[in-house]
């Protein structure tokens, strides 16, 4: 095991090798590229597992390197990578507990996706190798991100992932939507990146260091000075904008739904499991900054996260495209993680990141399976009853579904619970005077839990239950090949079970040293939590209730209520309340009222998203174009004209002087004499 730990860099080297190999021998590999990719990723996965075990064997991440940083277990540094004057940007890779865990997550998802994709793509697919090269490059980026021992390398990996995201969204670039989506994704995240870079510059200015270890020492010193503390707070805020962009938080979330234009396996790994979580990872990793600077930064983080989660979940309730539902769901869940970071639930946030990676990747792949079986139809209202046709897909989907809605026992239950608990116990000093404000994130998160359950139930029902709505599509639907279902199963296992690591069962029951409770495993030095059982019970109860309620509502609305009635309700709810009031069943009346309100809110938020946020983005774009044209105009018409005018003026003067030369020699002489006389006279006058 120590051998694997010592050579952990191999994990990153494997996808690099695979990517380069596939790109170079694309022509001869063709369809076989998947073998290269999957094989290398399989090795990487095993290697990561070995590393994880070895790291776990090193015990609890007890001794802190400093505030908010665990001691890396292994650390490789290429010190002389980029000497910029007296400061050297080193290229370092390190492994600590969080990293070890993330390695497994990333390699597992990547492995599953690479196996799955081979079945997903049609035989006529032209850019198969391109997809594999990009996926492997992406995996390299993500691994680099989690292994990076400094902000700079993190940024590089970050951008490489951005590139791959761009490439994968635009996979079918003959069509309009992917071309639109890829640019939107790249640019929107780029806006956040600028913030991130700015944060890095500010931090460098204060500390002259970018390594985590260095920062963990220098930031606490630097915040002693109020001025630098303020600047660092600003820096932290800017770094957070990077996370907002990458993790699709409000208000930069708009790109993620459009990122669904890419092939579904790519979406699964990039836009669900890993890359979008990089923002969360960034906040988690740089907690020595967030945790030390003035509190308002973390409060901002908490509110942005919780608001996003609610906001996105409400939108998701009305989406018709299965992938879009999942996309909004992803945004919403990312909001959870961000909120967890903001409220100090560092371990909870990371935990949710891990479980979410599993179940959301699973959901996406299952959705992909459905879509592939359905001739690339993604619309929910054309599906229905698929559970009979695609049993494996259905079961795995259900695992993911239960995990997402937080059904007790599934991974999502534990992680969501922890997140909510952290939000519940959150008591920032700055908000001590207004406790209800401090409870807002929790409240919003709880509503989100309900909404999540609702829309997932709705989607599940529409896709798998009931009668087929489009008979022709239904007839052609079939279960996916093994190469697709096996990865689903592979992912379903952790999606279902990974939560139990948190539950400390292994720890409490066996006291086994090899695997501690994840809570302890992910313990961040300097961030202490003590939670009373009563609180824990309350939160669990509330969350479970909310989830179950959501499930029920969804189930009821779609399974019990006839579509015509539902339509009628919606129709009726539209103009006036009075019609709804006149409905026969009272409880249904309540339910209806809730739906109506939710729908109205969702519509409003959707409208806001479509008009205000998108409008703002478009406006910015328009201003950019206008400005661009203005400056081009300026170039053409002012600067150039000045040059030309100058030439014209010269010529005009030339013509004037030329007129002096009339050909009459006596006029010349008059000029001559006049000039001489003028000289003489002027000199007499002036001297």
């Amino acid at each position, binding site marked *: 095991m120590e051998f694997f730990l010592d050579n952990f860099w191999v994990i990153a080297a494997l996808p690099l090798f695979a990517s380069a190999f596939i790109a170079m021998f694309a022509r001869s590999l063709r369809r076989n590229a998947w073998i290269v990719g999957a094989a290398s990723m399989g090795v990487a996965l095993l290697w990561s597992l070995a590393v994880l075990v070895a790291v776990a064997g090193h015990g609890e991440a007890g001794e802190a390197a400093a505030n908010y940083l665990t001691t890396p277990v292994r650390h490789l540094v290429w010190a002389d990578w980029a000497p910029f004057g007296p400061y050297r940007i080193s290229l370092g890779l390190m492994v600590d507990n969080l990293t070890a865990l993330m390695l497994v997550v990333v390699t597992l998802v990547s492995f599953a996706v690479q196996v799955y994709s081979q079945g997903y793509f049609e035989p006529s697919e032209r850019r198969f190798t391109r997809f594999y090269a990009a996926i492997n490059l992406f995996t390299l980026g993500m691994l680099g991100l989690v292994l990076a021992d400094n902000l700079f390398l993190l940024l590089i990996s970050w951008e490489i992932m951005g590139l791959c995201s761009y490439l994968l969204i635009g996979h079918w670039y003959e069509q309009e939507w992917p071309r639109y989506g890829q640019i939107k994704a790249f640019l929107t995240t780029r806006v956040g990146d600028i913030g991130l870079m700015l944060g890095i510059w500010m931090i460098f200015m204060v500390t002259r260091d970018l390594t985590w270890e260095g920062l963990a020492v220098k930031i606490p010193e630097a915040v002693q000075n109020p001025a630098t503390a303020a600047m660092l707070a600003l820096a932290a805020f800017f770094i957070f904008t990077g996370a907002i962009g990458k993790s699709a938080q409000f208000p930069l979330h708009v790109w993620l739904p459009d990122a669904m234009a890419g092939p579904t396996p790519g979406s699964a790994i990039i836009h669900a499991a890993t890359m979008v979580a990089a923002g969360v990872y960034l906040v988690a990793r740089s907690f020595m900054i967030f945790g030390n600077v003035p509190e308002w930064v973390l409060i901002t983080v908490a509110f942005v996260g919780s608001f996003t989660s609610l906001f996105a979940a409400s939108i998701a309730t009305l989406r018709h495209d299965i992938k879009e539902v999942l996309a909004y769901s992803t945004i919403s869940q990312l909001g959870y993680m961000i909120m967890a970071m903001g409220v100090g639930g560092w371990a909870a946030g990371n935990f949710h990141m891990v479980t979410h990676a599993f179940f959301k990747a699973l959901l996406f792949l299952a959705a992909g399976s459905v879509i592939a079986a359905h001739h690339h139809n993604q619309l929910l209202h054309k599906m229905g009853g698929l559970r009979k046709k695609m049993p494996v897909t259905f079961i795995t989907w259900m695992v993911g579904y239960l995990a997402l809605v937080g059904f007790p026992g599934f991974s999502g239950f534990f992680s969501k619970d922890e997140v909510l608990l952290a939000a519940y116990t959150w008591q920032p000093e700055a908000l001590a005077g207004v406790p209800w404000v401090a409870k807002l994130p929790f409240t919003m998160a709880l509503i989100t839990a309900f909404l999540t359950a609702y829309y997932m139930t709705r989607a599940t029902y529409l896709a798998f239950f009931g009668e087929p709505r489009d008979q022709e599509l239904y007839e052609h639907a079939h279960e996916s090949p093994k190469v697709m279902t096996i990865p689903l199963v592979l992912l379903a296992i952790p999606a279902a079970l990974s939560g139990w690591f948190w539950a400390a069962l292994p720890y409490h029951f066996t006291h086994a040293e090899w695997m501690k409770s994840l809570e302890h495993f992910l313990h961040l030095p300097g961030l202490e939590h003590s939670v009373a059982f009563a609180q824990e019970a309350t939160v669990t109860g509330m969350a479970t209730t909310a989830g179950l309620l959501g499930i029920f509502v969804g189930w009821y609305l779609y399974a019990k209520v006839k579509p015509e009635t539902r339509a009628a309700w919606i129709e009726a709810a539209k103009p006036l309340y009075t019609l709804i009031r006149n409905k026969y069943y009272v409880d249904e009346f309540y339910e209806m009222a809730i739906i109506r309100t939710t729908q109205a809110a969702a519509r409003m938020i959707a409208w806001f998203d479509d008009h205000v946020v998108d409008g703002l983005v478009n406006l910015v774009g328009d201003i950019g174009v206008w400005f661009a044209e203005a400056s081009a105009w300026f170039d053409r018409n002012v600067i150039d004209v000045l040059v030309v005018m100058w030439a014209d003026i010269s010529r005009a003067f030339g013509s004037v002087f030329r007129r002096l030369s009339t050909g*009459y020699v*006596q*006029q010349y002489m008059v000029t001559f004499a006049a000039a001489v006389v003028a000289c003489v*006279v002027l000199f*007499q006058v002036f001297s």
Partner: protein
Amino acid sequence: MSALTLLTRGESIAFLILALVALGSTYKMVTSRLITHAALFMALSFTAVAGVFLLLEAEFVAAIQILIYTGAITTMILFAIMLSGLAEIRKDRETRGPLWMKSDPLVLVVGGIFAAFMCYIYAAANLPEAITPESLPTVKAIGSALFTKYVIPFEVASILLLIAMVGAIILTAKEAE
């Protein structure tokens, strides 16, 4: 010494007469229509100025003035006029340019203004009284200076004349067909 006594001195009277002759004949150069007449008046003007040179005790200059100017140059000009039939009559007034510039008396006016201006400068310079010369330029002194100290200019002048001759030949000779 009052202005009147100055003017009534013999030298002054002689000078004024000579100057008037010079000016008058120069003015006639302007006004006479025939170019040959103008040339003759030029000769007269030169002669008058030669008289002034005599007044200034520059006998040698006066002599060569008569010889070269009155004699050689005038003759040459007259010859050229006669040979080439350039002696046609033409009123300058008919020509181009502002007419007032061509008016005859204006010549005197402008000359007068120039002279007045120069005299103003001389006066402003407060030119001293004349210094009695200790020696006068005798022909002997001039001749010996010409062949000793001024030998180079002398030679140059000779080449100048040679070139003028050759140049005149080039410019006027008929083609040796």
